[in-house]
């Protein structure tokens, strides 16, 4: 099976990014895997509502908006997923009893949306000067019914795939911060995806580093 775009299975789509695109936010970033584009704005640390205040660390609030359709439980799931992972990557203990608000807006969705969101978050958090334990990057893959593994799939490819996988790695490469795989898949293929994702995450991190300079 070949990919419609003429890409090879292990090639990512062209990456594009921009930082500081929102002038009212404390930090912002836009990240695009070709057509899939997510904009992320970071506000904070700001005052937190008493109810959400935490003694020893900052409270994160993640808001995810799609470009089309009504909000559903899908957004809540993505928000909780992003929040739990970002909580581990941001040095929240440096800003106790404050709020860091991270807002995502999908500009266009052509597959690998969650990965684009994570990558946009990394750009925006760095832009906002929020201390991180490390930079991070996310990679999506999918496995087709014939066993081919496609890196950075488009929406059509995700639709045809038997299983879909999202990974988040940090620059220290200690392990996966977040894994979400669904659909039937073999463990050996999963292991392969893990390795591909770890390698590709490094490529994205290098790209981010270059984009920063």
């Amino acid at each position, binding site marked *: 099976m070949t990919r419609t775009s003429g890409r090879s299975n292990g090639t990512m789509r062209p990456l594009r990014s921009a930082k500081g695109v929102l002038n009212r936010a404390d930090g912002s970033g836009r990240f695009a895997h070709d057509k899939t584009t997510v904009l992320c704005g970071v506000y904070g640390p700001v005052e937190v509502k008493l109810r959400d*205040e935490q*003694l*020893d660390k900052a409270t994160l609030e993640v808001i995810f908006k799609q470009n089309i359709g009504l909000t559903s439980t899908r957004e809540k799931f993505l928000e909780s997923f992003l929040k739990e992972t970002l909580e581990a990557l941001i040095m929240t203990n440096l800003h106790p*009893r404050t709020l860091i608000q991270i807002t995502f807006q999908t500009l266009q969705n052509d597959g690998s949306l969650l990965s684009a969101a994570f990558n946009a978050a990394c750009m925006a958090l760095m832009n906002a000067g929020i201390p991180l334990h490390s930079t991070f990057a996310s990679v999506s893959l999918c496995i087709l019914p014939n066993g081919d593994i496609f890196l950075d799939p488009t929406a059509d490819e995700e639709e045809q795939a038997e299983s879909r996988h999202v990974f988040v790695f940090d620059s220290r490469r200690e392990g996966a911060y977040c894994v979400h795989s669904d659909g039937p898949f073999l463990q050996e293929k999963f292991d392969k995806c893990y390795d591909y994702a770890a390698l590709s995450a490094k490529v994205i991190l290098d790209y981010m580093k270059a984009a920063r300079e």
Partner: protein
Amino acid sequence: MSTRIVVPGERLGPARPDQTLQAGTYLRGGNVVATVVGAVGADDQVSVQGKSRKAAIPTVGAQVTGKVKRINSRMAIVSIMMIGAQPVKEDFEGVIRVENVRATERDKVQIPKCFRPGDIVRAEVISLGEAHSYILSTAKNELGVIFAQSAAGATMIPISWEEMQCPVTGAIENRKVCQIENTSQ
């Protein structure tokens, strides 16, 4: 077992004028009546003790243990986690006002020199307060901070009634310390 078991609404016996009503009972038409399920105590002390210990809420005079949630110049806000020796399932909120921190030199008390967020304190409920939290006091020797961590994250050791020391860095921090020795004897 000779213990008599009663259920809510069951008559325990006629009320006598010299008697005070015990927990778990009420008066109905000259009789003492149970309000909870349980076993009846000795017959001169008509009382019922059921699972009501589970349903503990702070009362005036009760000793409570809790964690300091936040402080400001006027008060420390405490999450009440235990009433007496009984852990509560869900925390209640209480405040220690600056004038209730200690018994002497009340006008010199500075909250940040007595409590820090995260400290575990023992206090007494002195009033149910008005609209908001339970009003607590630590103005007794056996009340105050019973557990605190230093900036280095170590459990600090009390060295006087107003100081605690970090065993790792040796740094001394100010607290309104609870004198545990007195209570455990």
